[in-house]
């Protein structure tokens, strides 16, 4: 254990010496300050409620049945009143009996949208809204989706309805807030987005794009030096002459690289979380869990870096190989989603061999894309789906996260094991 810790400490010394750690820490600080500068400004609740009807393109939100598409109705706002924090919106429709729409599950919607909206697949989750009752149910669904809760819709006359809701949490209501940057200096309207949606988008950008993509690329470059440096003639002799097993040497160096990334990810995610929490007042501890996902994603690609370092002892190969591997995983993950797409399968007859190869590769290689989706799950822990965009929900459907994590961990363990075995057999 003493030797193990000493080697991990040595990896840190090396990364500190390269000054990259300080550079990354400074970057984390800048992003944290930028996150702190983000805030929300409350907008009138009635405007937000009206906005649902004004800004919504009803035809694009619901999907008309082809044979009744001309009968789709658009509700008209008659009045809006406020009494003790409760808002009453009176709506009318020209002919509710002519209402004929259907809503689909998030997954089906996403597939439909990605397909260009040409054809909607048959699905058990398809909800058909017909007539007056259907209109009311659809309206309820639409407002709930926009974050208006608690909600009550009453029929007040022929073709007239009263929608009652309370001005509860503006953060969860679409259009109830505007976004501010630079500590309130810049203000941007959110349109049909809720504050919570925007925080989710920002956190997703930070965790998936900044830390999970750019950050990991930087980490690959920084840590790619660790093992080739260790294996250089003259350096490795000094270590192998000690009473320490070779596998332990390699494992410690590997974990040293992981610790470096974990610490940087923790600084970045922790800092931006704190900044955003203080700036927006929205506390979402689930975002902090993305540190684990980022480290796991790095663990996968770094295992390839370790393997190539043992094989070739070359820094350039140790940088390029994991990046190429990561891209391959992305292609396979995307390929699997594509060959599984029912819309595509209905339109095009894919060769069975292509499906088999893609599926085999998908189960053989780590599911890096699924780990990115896992971040979305973490960011929404303890929260419902209200106020969350349908497409965001759709991307998380049908993902076997436990399977993805297990297969990724297994793959990483196997690659590190092979690297250790090769290292054990190698002459220096």
């Amino acid at each position: 254990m003493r030797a193990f810790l000493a080697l991990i400490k040595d990896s840190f010394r090396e990364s500190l010496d390269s000054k990259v750690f300080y550079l990354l820490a400074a970057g984390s600080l800048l992003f944290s300050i930028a996150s702190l500068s983000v805030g929300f400004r409350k907008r009138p609740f009635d405007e937000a409620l009206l906005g649902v009807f004004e800004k919504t393109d009803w035809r694009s939100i619901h999907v008309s049945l082809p044979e009744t598409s001309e009968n789709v109705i658009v509700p008209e706002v008659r009045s809006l009143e406020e009494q003790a924090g409760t808002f009453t919106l009176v709506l009318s429709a020209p002919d509710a009996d002519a209402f004929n729409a259907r809503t689909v599950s998030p997954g089906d919607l996403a597939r439909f949208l990605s397909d260009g909206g040409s054809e909607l697949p048959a699905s058990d989750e398809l909800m058909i809204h017909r007539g007056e009752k259907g209109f009311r149910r659809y309206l309820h669904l639409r407002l709930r989706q926009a974050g208006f809760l608690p909600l009550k819709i009453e029929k007040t006359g022929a073709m007239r309805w009263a929608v009652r809701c309370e001005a509860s949490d503006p953060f969860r209501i679409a259009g109830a807030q505007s976004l501010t940057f630079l500590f309130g200096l810049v203000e941007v309207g959110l349109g049909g987005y809720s504050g919570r949606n925007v925080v989710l988008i920002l956190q997703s950008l930070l965790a998936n794009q900044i830390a999970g993509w750019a950050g990991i690329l930087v980490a690959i470059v920084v840590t790619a030096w660790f093992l080739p440096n260790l294996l250089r003639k003259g350096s490795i002799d000094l270590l192998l002459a000690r009473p320490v097993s070779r596998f332990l040497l390699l494992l410690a160096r590997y974990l040293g690289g992981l610790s470096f990334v974990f610490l940087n990810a923790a600084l970045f995610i922790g800092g931006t979380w704190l900044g955003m929490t203080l700036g927006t007042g929205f506390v979402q501890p689930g975002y902090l869990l993305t540190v684990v996902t980022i480290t796991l994603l790095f663990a996968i690609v770094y295992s390839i870096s370790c393997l190539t370092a043992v094989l070739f002892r070359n820094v350039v190969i140790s940088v390029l190989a994991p990046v190429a591997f990561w891209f391959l995983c992305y292609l396979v993950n995307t390929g699997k989603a594509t060959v599984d797409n029912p819309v595509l399968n209905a339109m095009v007859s894919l060769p069975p061999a292509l499906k088999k190869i893609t599926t085999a590769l998908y189960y053989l290689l780590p599911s890096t894309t699924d780990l990115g989706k896992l971040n979305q799950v973490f960011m929404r822990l303890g929260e419902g789906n209200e106020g969350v965009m349908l497409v965001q929900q759709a991307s998380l459907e049908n993902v076997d996260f436990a399977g993805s994590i297990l297969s990724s961990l297994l793959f990483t363990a196997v690659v590190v094991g092979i690297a250790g075995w090769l290292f054990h057999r190698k002459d220096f």
Partner: protein
Amino acid sequence: METGEDRIEAAVEVRRLTKIYRAAFQHEVKALDGLDMKVPRGEIFGLLGPNGAGKTTLVKVLLDICRPTAGETFLLGTDSRKTRSRRAVGYLPEDHRFPGYLTGAAAMDLYGALSGLPRRERRRRGAEALDRVGLSKWARVKTRKYSKGMKQRLGIAQALFHDPDVLLLDEPTDGVDPVGRKAIRDLLLEFHDRGKTILINSHLLLEVELICRDVAIMNHGRILKRGGVEALTRTGSRYRVRVGGDLFSAMGVVQAQAGEAEREGDAVLFPAADDAALDAVTAALGAAGHPIREISPVRMSLEELFIDVLGSPGDEDGGREEEP
């Protein structure tokens, strides 16, 4: 049949050791060829040989840095493929390279931890070792700023500071100035005085001659000659005498008595087949009024022995193996 106890007596033991380097699309290289060798505990042993003789490979196999193709190796009686065999071993590789981001003290700390020393011991012994090799003022300086000689001294310090029983040194004084070399020699002799075993690989034959009591000369992965330095370098029947009085007159006396006399500076060299012949020469010199100031057997230098054993550079077989 050798018993386990015999093996424990040897600090280093090598049995029928063969190492063949194989690489794709390249010729095989036989670095060690059925080598047998034993270094008893408490000895300072010099391993000599030209470049490519297999000296470094032998040490690397002993430390499990290289894997043998055939044969067995033991360190202090333990199979050297086992990790624990390296617990009581210190090693200074040739062309060693300390990570530039480590200070001298941090290097000591790292290698000490890998050798299993607790933190307090590492700090204490590390500071002492750096002081012994004259690097205490450089302890907090990164090794990338060290000169070659300083790195060499740091290498000695890291090899010694965990108090190993066996020390394997590959070119220990390479790049060190004469004063530093003397300091390293003293350090090694002091280490040896405590009953420790030292095995030195070196091209610097004079250094080896000054330190080692036993040497082996290797080439092409085989040991060509092995024995005590004194015995190996002794020419056998020639003596050097320094006398008072006229040198030419003394030479005449020696010539008359021994049949041959050769001047070498202020001394006379002559052959003497045995003690009686030697006594006859000294008696004749005394009788002729030439008091004897010094008399000693003529030895060849280790370098001369080395060249003699390996043959001239043009010799294709690179020396002859000693008959068992």
